[in-house]
Structures are given as C-alpha cells and as structure tokens.
C-alpha cells in the first residue's frame, strides 16, 4: 500500500462511514445538544433581562417613593407654615381684642369714676349745704336770741335775696 496514492477501499469506507456518522450525529446528537444549549442561553438571557427589568422597576419605585416623600415633606412644610401664620394671626388678633377690651374697660372705668365723682360732689354739696344749714341754724339760733341782731340778720338775707 503506497503512502500517497489513495486506496479506493479506504476512501469508499471513509465516505460511507462519515456520511452515516454525519447523519446519526446531526439527528441524534448535535440537534438536541445545540437546541438545548440555545434554549438554555435563551432562558439565561431572559432571566438577565427580567432581572434588569426588576432593577429598573425597583429604581422607578424608589423614584416614586422619593417623589412621594418629597411631596409629603413639602405638604408638611406648607401645613406648618400655615399653622405658624395662623398662630401669629391669632395672637395678633387676640392682643388687638385684648387691647380694645382694655381700652373699653379703661374708658368705662373713667366714665364710672367721673360719675362717682359727680355723685360724690353732689353728695358733698348736699352735705355741705346741710352742714351749712345746720351751722346756720345753730348760728341763727344763737344770734336770734338777740332782737336787734334778728332784724339785722333778716335785713341782710333780704338784701342778698334782692341781689339775686
């Protein structure tokens, strides 16, 4: 058997064997193996994609949460601000009212003081008049014990009355 001359028999068998092997392998080995590998790769890719999606969703959720939190914070700030304003307004209102009330009380007090003063003055006047009358009576009683003096007295009172 020569080294570089192809033997027909071996060529024949190689061709037949290779064709049969190719057919058997393609049908029973390569096809299931390659399909299964492809399916596995597909499922790995799908899993990776879904993990990526989940990650994105998580990010979205977090962003939403952040947004909500921000909104809540803003709302809280607004409420606090409003409350502060309300408080200030209430305080201002209250102090104004109090001032008005106080002014009124003071005014009332002044008026009642004035009234009291007037009535006191009036009473004083009456008292003074009564006292005067009493004194006068006592004086008159003492003076009228003398006739001459009586006449002079009457003359004097009459004279004053005429002047009125």
């Amino acid at each position, binding site marked *: *058997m020569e*080294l*570089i*001359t*192809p*033997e*027909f*028999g*071996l*060529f*024949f*068998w*190689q*061709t037949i*064997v*290779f064709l*049969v*092997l*190719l057919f*058997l*392998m*393609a049908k*029973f*080995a*390569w*096809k*299931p*193996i*390659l*399909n*299964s*590998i492809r*399916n*596995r790769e597909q*499922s790995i890719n799908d899993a990776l994609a879904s993990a990526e999606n989940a990650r994105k969703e998580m990010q979205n959720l977090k962003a939403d949460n952040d947004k909500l939190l921000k909104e809540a914070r803003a709302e809280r700030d607004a409420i606090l601000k409003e409350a502060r304003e309300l408080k200030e307004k209430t305080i201002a209102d209250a102090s104004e009212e109090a001032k008005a009330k106080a002014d009124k009380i003071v005014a009332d007090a002044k008026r009642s003081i004035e009234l009291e003063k007037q009535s006191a003055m009036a009473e004083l006047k009456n008292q003074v008049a009564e006292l005067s009358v009493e004194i006068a009576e006592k004086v008159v009683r003492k003076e009228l014990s003398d006739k001459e003096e009586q006449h002079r007295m009457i003359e004097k009172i009459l004279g004053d009355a005429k002047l009125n």
Partner: protein
Amino acid sequence: MTAHKSFKIIVTLALGFALLPLNLFAGETKEDDNSAEDEFNATEMIMHHIGDAHGWHFFGEGDGSVTLPLPVILYTENGLVTFMSSEFHHDTEGKHVVEKDGMRFVNLHEDIYRLDADATAVEFDEEHHPVNASKPWDLSITKNVAAMFLTVILMILFFWIGLARHHKKHEHAPKGFNNVLETLVLFVRDEIAIPQLGEKKYMKFMPFLLTVFFFIWITNLMGLLPGAANVTGNIAVTVSLGLFTLVLILVNGNKDFWKHTFWMPGIPAWVKPILAIVEGAGLFIKPIALMIRLFANITAGHIIILSLIGLIFILEHAGVAGISVPFALFITVLELLVAFLQAFIFTILSALFIGMAVEEHEHH
C-alpha cells in the same frame, strides 16, 4: 488531585505511550530478521506502521503474533468475495495463496492480488511487480476502517448516549465529562462556526463542522495510542474529508460567490479570464490543501516518533534508547497538541471556505 500528582500521571502515561511502540517494534525487527534480510530496514518498518493493513497487528511475530483478523471484501468480475484476513496466516509477501470461490488471492505488501486463472503462485518481474496477478476492487474492512468504526462508536457514546441524553432530560448545564464535551461543542460553535459563517448561517453547517472536528480529533488521538491505526495520516481518508468540504462549497456557493470566482467585478475586462482561471483552480486547491495538510502533519508526527525509536535498532545499541525515548516522548506529547491543532485547522478552514461561498457581498 494536586498538580504534582497529575503531572506524575501524565508523565507515566506518556512514557507508556512512548515505550509501547518500542515493544511492538522490537517484535517487528525479529520478523524482518527471520525473513529475507538480516539488516534492519527502517523505511520498511516505518511504512508498515503508518500504512494500512488487512489485519490489526498488536504484538509478536510470524505465526506467534497477536493479530485481530479483519474481513477482506473483494469485488471481482465474479462478484463479491469475502474471507477473514487471518486466512493469509500473517503473510504479506505473496507466498500464502488463499483459494475462495474458485479464485486465488495473495497478500503482497498489504495489497490483495488475484492470481490469473492458471497460476498457483505469484511470479515477479525484475522490479518485483507481479506479472501473473491483478488487483480486484478492495473494499476490505482494513485496520484503518476498523479504527474509524472505533471513532464512530466513541462519538456515539460521548455525544449521543452521553451529552445528548443529558440535554434531553435536563435543562441545566451538565457536570463532569459531559461538561467538557459541551465546552468543546461550544468552542466549535463560538470560535469556529459563528466567526467564519456569521450568526445567520452557521446553524446549517454546525452538524458538518462538529462531526468533522470531533472525528478528526478523536481519530488523531486514537492514532497516538500504541498499536493504533494511522487513519487521519492516510491520504484516502483526508481526500474523502476534503471532498466533503469541496462539495459543501460547490453546493452552497451563492450567485455572488460564482460571480466573484469566474467574472470578478470591478477589474479590467481582460484580467477577468485570467482571474477566472486562478479562482477556478483555487476552488479545488483549497480542499486539496486541507487534505495534504492533515495527511502530512499526522504522518510526519508518526514518522518522527518511529524514526527516533528506529535509531536504537539502526545503531544496534540499547544505550541509544536513553536519548531516543525522551525525544520520542517529547514528540508524542507534541503530537497530542498537533492532534487538536490539525482538527481545529481543518474545521476552521472548512468553515472559512464555506463562509466565503455563502457570504453576502455588498454591491460596489
């Protein structure tokens, strides 16, 4: 397993591989001594080892040798003739005549000759060519064919019974040896098929590429075992494999490919016929290069190892073994790499050539 331990095992195995041909070959010399010549003929020994044979010889010499008989199948004008190779009684000198169906056959240097009707023994001319015998069509299951069957059995065991069954039952990635096989399948797909053929078209050629890759690689590795056949180092085998690639190129070549081969666009008209001849020849040179590369690389490796061992017998001194064996061991280990490399090169070049034939050209 520690690296040190595995290294030891590898060395032991490799030594075994390197030494076993020595034993086999030691038997051969004696056989040669017993026959015509006293002197050791290295060329004959090497050619015997790298060539095909009708029986699978393991060890021993003459009638005492251990040989697996293989069927001899001959196609003559009187129809098919079959008998076992053992009927030649280890004779390759054309001395032992086998009579079958009224015809006489002899084995002359592993070529089966049919003696002419009236002849009872082979007669030679001065150039040692038989004058009274002719060669029938020899379709015997030779040593190489038997080794080929072994590769087929291994591939069926590995990929059909092994890996494909796992894939039919389970979704997850396989473990152990199946995982190694799957990695290799993926290697062929991702490093050979997809880069050369493109994402869209590779699937169609995957069965061929995978089959050719594993067939060549496993056969190469089997060929390194002591006493094994030199299948991929036989030109008939590589011619057949190369023809498969050629047929795939011719069948799958698209319009663009044929146009670029025989009427290259974009060059002066007078260059076109010249280029057509070059490209047309290239069409056949490509697979021929594939055939020769695989055949030459594998055969060369075997010849180097056999020559190194043969040195011991040429110089007729056992001390030469001290140099020859380590060298042969080194080459054997190198051959392990070459076994893979040649399978890879054959497959990637096949993919490349097919890829060129199916490529969609952009129109300039």
